[in-house]
């Protein structure tokens, strides 16, 4: 039983999921990602220009989700991998974003570690593969 995100709903997020399209606030100049209707930095600007983020950043915090507790959508992944890391990454353009980390270094994850976005399968619902970004040690 998964959290239902319809196919049209997922499709609306494809630019942000596939290639990190964010928005630069025309009022304060800061970059919002994921996109908002009103800028989260100045809480005032509502006009933006699209910016494609580099996908480069550093680990701001991390955890390792043990297989048994994974959300149902990730049960198969947990079955294959045993456990998997989830990180909050501070992107070089400013915003932070939560995502999985793939191919973690054997010595362990550290805060401040440089990472870059990679294109992966996130999960599957209704037989449709939901692709998006994860991060990998840079």
């Amino acid at each position, binding site marked *: *039983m*998964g*959290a239902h*995100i319809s196919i049209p709903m997922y499709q609306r*997020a494809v630019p942000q999921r596939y290639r990190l399209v964010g928005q630069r606030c025309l009022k304060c100049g800061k970059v919002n990602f*994921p996109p908002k209707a009103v800028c*989260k930095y100045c809480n005032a600007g509502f006009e933006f220009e699209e910016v494609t983020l580099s996908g480069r950043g550093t680990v*701001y*915090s*991390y*955890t*390792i*989700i*043990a297989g*048994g*507790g*994974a*959300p*149902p*959508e*990730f*049960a198969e*992944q947990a079955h294959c991998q045993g*456990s*998997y890391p*989830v*990180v*909050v990454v501070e992107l070089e353009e400013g*915003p*932070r*974003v*939560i*995502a*999985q980390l793939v191919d973690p270094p054997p010595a362990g994850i550290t*805060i401040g570690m440089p990472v870059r976005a990679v294109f992966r399968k*996130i*999960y599957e619902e209704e037989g449709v593969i*939901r692709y*998006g970004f994860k991060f990998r040690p840079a």
Partner: protein
Amino acid sequence: MEGVAIIGAGQTRYGDFPTKGVKELFAEAYLEMLQSVDRGLDPQMIQAAYIGCLSAGSGFQLGQLAPLLMGHVGLPHVNAVRVENACASGGFALYNAACAVASGKFDLVLAAGVEKMRDISSSKGRYWLGVSGDTEYERLAGSTFAGIYALMATRYMHEYGLKREHLSMVAVKNHRNAAANPKAQFRKAITLEQAMNGVPVAYPFNIWDCSPTTDGAAVVLLCNARRARDFTSRPVYLRGFGAASDYLAIHDRSSITRLNATRKAAAEAYKQAGIGPRDIDFAEVHDCFTIAEILAYADLGFCEEGRAHYLLEEGITQLDGKLPVNASGGLKAKGHPIGATGCGMAYEIFRQLRGEAAEPVRQIKNARFALSHNVGGSGGTAAVFIYQRGDE
């Protein structure tokens, strides 16, 4: 604004009850509440009810749960509404009830919470535990609630030198407190060694860092303070109540080593009560995960940010310390029936301030002011309440 008093409170035991559903749990807490109104009450005088619940019995009654429950206890015509703010559903039911009384519109308002979590498959359970974060990002990163709080813990450890032991100290303290609480889910103390070495859940958490899934209900009855003594000789006054929100997703917040919703709610409650953190004699705080209690210490003003673990080292928040926190056992060991939790905290404080803590060993003596703190999810919402003993 009218004054608000609590004149009655009831709570089921927290735990795993295969023979009881949401209706039965709610009724049990409701009937205990009625009995606690020592000068008697005609239930038909109750004018409104706010009932906190997240999953509505794992989804069987997502719509109009409140009238279903009120009809089950003989109050079919009361103005009733379900309140949902995830784990803070009960707290926001209480907050809305308090506002309703304070506004002068109503004199007798029920605040309640109920959750039935133990009768579903593990897959469905994990589904429900993940519906209250930012679904598109937090959940689709494969993270659980434990994972989100774990991210806060990892960052807190990095910034402030918190150690794994400090997390476990919260678990040990709260399990010890729950052992004495006849209404708690886990009535067994654990050692620090046990708490440090549980089955991993989400680094740095193991199973002992996490609150359980729980069945339970809690009901409190609020009354206009001017009429409180018509119903009880020992009301407990709700002197301050605050509530606030924050960005739902952890990555949108400026800091992940504090909960801004808690800070804003606490400021509102303290201001209304006209007292400060130093005046609080004991508190029930939201310890869904061990780090949550540690964050709460600074967010509620009990210490400076980043200093919370020293309160644990010095034993200040133990039952016999200067500021006992989670004398009930907290969410961690008393149990965490999501929608009920916020009202269950009010139940504990009501009983403590009236000297009715059931077991003498757990009675906190000479307390005047108490605080409860209820958080929705990972801090998307929070409600804070300040209570005063009513015999002064």
